């Protein structure tokens, strides 16, 4: 550039500047994705070994994993897990199905909505676990009270999400259906249901998370089976390592159930834009 004035010029480089090496490494997301939990566990192990962490409350990961593997050999652990899963699922189904149905019905019928909305709005903010004692009084300490409390918690999450989905259908889609003279059930099937599906799945996702919370609490009462029981029981008899084994399984259950739901959602809602990749601000 040979302009001989004192003007300033903004010049951009003609190729990309080299990034620092560490930044390139962090670009490879999988590296950190694997590295960080492993690093965390190693750090934990070391902190316990040098006695900076109290081994009574934070047993070494190596020990816990060994415990987990040992217990995995016996069917008892799997019976506990099975109970927890079945309570979650039965309760979930018990709550989700009426939740979706009532949600769609309320979404499409203003009368029904205005009739029920105030009552539901009043019940919604009650933490459903607070109803658990009442439910135990009514249904006893057995399985049914556990299903019912999970069902109640799931029901409200799914109902609210479905309702929001149906109510918030873009007006124009209903206009198109009307313009094309869609019959009532055609409009339900081709517009209301698919348009609400993403919301319904959001409700499922929240409900599933809630169901695990509620199951863990419910398993503190009137049962000797289930991962929640193992956690509370281990606390009572001070078996911290057993508690960790159960915690790991509960975490896995939470993680895998959400993963499964996401899979199902992707299969059922192929029209959704894939989630945005991590954005490098």
């Amino acid at each position: 550039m040979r302009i001989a004035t004192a003007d300033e010029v903004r010049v951009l480089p003609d190729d990309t500047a080299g990034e620092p090496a560490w930044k390139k490494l962090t670009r490879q997301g999988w590296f950190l994705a694997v590295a960080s939990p492993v690093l965390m566990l190693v750090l934990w192990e070391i902190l316990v070994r040098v006695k900076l962490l109290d081994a009574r409350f934070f047993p070494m990961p190596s020990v816990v994993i060994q415990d987990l593997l040992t217990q995995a050999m016996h069917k008892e652990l799997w019976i506990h897990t099975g109970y927890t899963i079945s309570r979650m699922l039965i309760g979930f189904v018990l709550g989700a199905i009426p939740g979706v149905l009532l949600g769609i019905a309320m979404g499409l019928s203003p009368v029904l909505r205005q009739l029920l909305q105030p009552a539901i709005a009043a019940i919604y903010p009650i933490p459903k676990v607070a109803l658990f004692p009442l439910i135990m009084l009514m249904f006893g300490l057995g399985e049914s009270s556990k299903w019912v409390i999970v069902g109640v918690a799931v029901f409200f999450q799914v109902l609210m999400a479905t309702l929001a989905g149906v109510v918030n259908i873009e007006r124009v889609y209903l206009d198109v259906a009307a313009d094309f003279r869609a019959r009532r059930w055609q409009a339900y099937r081709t517009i209301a249901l698919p348009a609400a599906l993403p919301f319904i799945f959001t409700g499922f996702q929240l409900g599933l998370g809630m169901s695990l919370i509620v199951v863990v609490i419910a398993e503190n009462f009137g049962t000797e089976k289930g991962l929640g029981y193992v956690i509370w029981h281990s606390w009572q008899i001070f078996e911290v390592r057993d508690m960790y084994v159960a915690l790991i399984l509960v975490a896995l259950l939470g993680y895998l159930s959400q993963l499964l739901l996401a899979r199902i959602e992707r299969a059922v809602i192929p029209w959704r834009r894939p989630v945005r990749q991590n954005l490098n601000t």
Partner: protein
Amino acid sequence: QDKVKVGAYSSVSDAPLYIALEKGFFKEQGLDVEMVKIDSGAALTTLLSTGDLDASGGSPGAGVYNAVRQGLQFKIVADKGSTLPGHGYFAFVVRKDLADQIKTPADLKDRSLAVTGYKVGASSEVTIGKLLASGGLKESDLKMTNMTFGDIAAALGTKKIDVGVLIEPLVTQVEAQGIATIWKRADTVYPNQQYGALMYGPGIIKRQAVADKFMVAYLKAARFYNAALAGKASKDELVQILTKHTTVKNPELYKTMKFPGIHPDGKLNTAGMAEDVKWWHANGRMKEEVKLSDIVDQSYAERAKKQLDASR
């Protein structure tokens, strides 16, 4: 004045602690004692381990032993409840309408039995184990459930269970209300079982002088308790103290109910405790056996006994 925080369940077996408090035995020793209500064995281990309590009444069960095995430092130092003959504080009660069908331990087959602390390594589990063994039964031969004492009484009333293990004064109450009948008191099934004990946590173990003074006051109260029950001291005063501090608020009940046994010298039935540990381990309540000598420390009680006997 030395501060001591002591946990108790508000149960009648905590009597020596409340007596020492009310009759000023702690003050005599220069101790400033604060009583904290606890509601479960888990609470006990937790609070002792975090140092929120210096000492506590509690049950020498699997939870306590497990905690010690995993490095929590507390000691079992004195008797605070055992099934001395005549002290059937616990009892097996049978639903009224089944009283004539359940007569021997073998009749328990396929019955439902509710107990507080089932599967957590509670003392009463061993008692049940002995009862069943005498009838040639195993736990799996009947339906066992875990319930709080209150639930057991209610469940007997609503006929949800057949047999329950209850504590006084509920034992007396359910019989009086015609809900159930007393079948066997615990002292007839497993005499001298150590179901209650005084425990010292690290907070007081570190202060031996305080620990000793505390024990003196405690034993002094235990002796008053035994004297009152034997009619050698004012039972009215005892009842007044218990009414004030324990969950049994109706003075009438003390007339008919059985009291827990508390050894005047605080002596623990270590042989029985070892037997219990064996049972819990054999029945899957504990993963490993523990050496009782690591856990029990009767030296405080022995020193206190000497001091009290000398001053008599």
